[in-house]
């Protein structure tokens, strides 16, 4: 599971939860739509695919429209989104999205969220049985939807949920933690105890902005999630705290924009990293980060 540089590239044999990966750079769920990107970039996207595994946008049992616009607010070195998890729902995903995602040249991780453990169970069994899917990610952390917060904020809730869900699929199970918890490391330990194969963090921090012209909330969803370089230091602290307390691999993210940033997450104890908001600034950010990580000369010399 440990990640190391081999001269000029990734160590061969690198894997995450038993799934071989060509490198350690994933995308953050909801920050890259490979189907949309293929419309914009064509097949060149597949030839130069930016990530070493692709994580789908979070899906729910029922289709969702998402929050009313405006959904975006730019902040100092970051942004707030109140997207609200728009998605086609389980059926739509299986029928429409999955066949297209299979064409990607990397393993597929499907992210799911439920408003109850029952919903999560339906999603896990519905998606987890598909051979095209390499891993499942449980989004316990979306700050836009009430239950997401509750499930991932307390160790007990998390343990109970993962306990019930774990047997439902043979696929490796990643638990995505919310940063809006007092003790994310405690939640991670609980997930590990209940059989999670990996944890990923951080999701966005709860944030808000006011319309300067009206003094009212800017976002259609009123509050939203803060992401980008602004939250990097918070993410590093949480990844570090979690990695010290669990043995399962940690997928670190939050503000990663360069190989330099990614290496900080590896230093903090992450086994893999994920690029989120930086994808918006550069669709090839994942490749760039991977390249900078693999080329030691792109990074400060280690004494």
């Amino acid at each position: 599971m440990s990640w190391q540089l081999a001269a000029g590239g990734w160590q061969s044999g690198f894997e995450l939860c038993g799934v071989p990966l060509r490198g350690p750079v994933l995308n953050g769920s909801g920050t890259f739509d490979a189907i949309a990107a293929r419309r914009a970039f064509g097949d060149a996207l597949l030839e130069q695919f930016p990530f070493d595994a692709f994580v789908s946008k979070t899906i729910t049992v029922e289709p969702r429209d998402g929050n009313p616009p405006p959904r975006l607010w730019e902040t100092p070195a970051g942004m707030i989104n109140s997207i609200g998890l728009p998605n086609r729902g389980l059926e739509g995903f299986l029928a429409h999205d999955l066949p297209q995602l299979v064409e990607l040249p990397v393993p597929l991780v499907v992210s799911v969220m439920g408003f109850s453990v029952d919903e999560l169970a339906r999603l896990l069994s519905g998606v987890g049985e598909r051979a095209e899917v390499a891993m499942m990610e449980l989004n316990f952390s979306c700050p836009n939807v009430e239950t997401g917060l509750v499930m991932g904020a307390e160790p007990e809730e998390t343990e109970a949920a993962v306990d019930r869900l774990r047997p439902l699929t043979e696929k490796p199970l990643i638990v995505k933690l919310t940063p809006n918890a007092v003790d994310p490391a405690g939640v991670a330990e609980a997930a590990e105890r209940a059989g999670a194969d990996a944890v990923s963090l951080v999701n966005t921090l709860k944030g808000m902005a006011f319309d300067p012209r009206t003094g009212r909330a800017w976002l259609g969803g009123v509050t939203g999630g803060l992401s980008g370089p602004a939250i990097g230091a918070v993410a590093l602290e949480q990844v570090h705290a979690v990695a010290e307390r669990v043995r399962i691999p940690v997928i670190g993210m939050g503000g990663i924009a360069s190989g330099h940033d990614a290496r900080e997450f590896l230093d903090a104890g992450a086994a893999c990293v994920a690029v989120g908001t930086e994808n918006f600034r550069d669709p090839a950010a994942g490749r760039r980060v991977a390249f900078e990580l693999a080329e030691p000369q792109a990074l400060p010399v280690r004494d």
Partner: protein
Amino acid sequence: MTQAATAAEPRTLAPPGRRLARVTANDALGAYRLISAHDREGPLEPRPGQFYMLAAAERWGGGADERPYLPRAFSYARARRADRGALLEFLLEAVGPGTERLGSLDPGDELALVGPLGVGFRQPEVGTRPLLVGGGIGTAPLVCLADELGAPRVLLGFRSGAHAEAARLFERPSLATDDGSVGRRALVTELLAETLQDEDLPAEGLATTVYACGPPPMLEAVRTICAERGVPAQLALESGMACGFGACFGCVVATRDGYVRLCLDGPVLEADRLQAVPE
């Protein structure tokens, strides 16, 4: 994810990453700035109505309120083949930290850019003549469209004479300004209504396809006027964008069939897909 499914849309594919383009000129055009950049790696023929996400390669951010951070969307106004690559022209109105920073670039500085993105204007409906209607900075995407359509009728509206300088990018446009300093003292939508009124409708109806871009109230008026007369219209809309390639789901606009990502299914939308132009 088959190419065929979307082959029909007026979209030139973009290279799948951010690249640098050197600024070759940045000049005032009345109240606007006209920025040219040499795009060596991008496609030579974007489609009118498509846009690029732009950022200054250096010092994008760190302003008074620590913005900009995200890139900004701009329609290209003109694209020409140049020695190795394309010369892209953008027409900019400074409204905040991003447009101010871009407006301050010097020739030789570099732009970071992704594009062309989005779906451009579609061909006029069979048997109709195009009519271009632009308001303010919304004239930008109409410049290349007019070039492509070959001197179509163009109606332009501006706040003031300084803004109306942008009309120089068109051949013989009809002009309206809010203050009457140039052209008629009128709204461009009044010119539109009159033009459609004056038209001799052929038996089958459809004489004109309207192409419009401008501020939301103007577009809403265009939509209404065209809807009342059954005239097909294509509207180039704006919305706040983070990515420009469908990744963030942030730019949605409400249509009759629900939210669509404007950067992916737009920015040009057929007017009848909208209940109303948002905002």
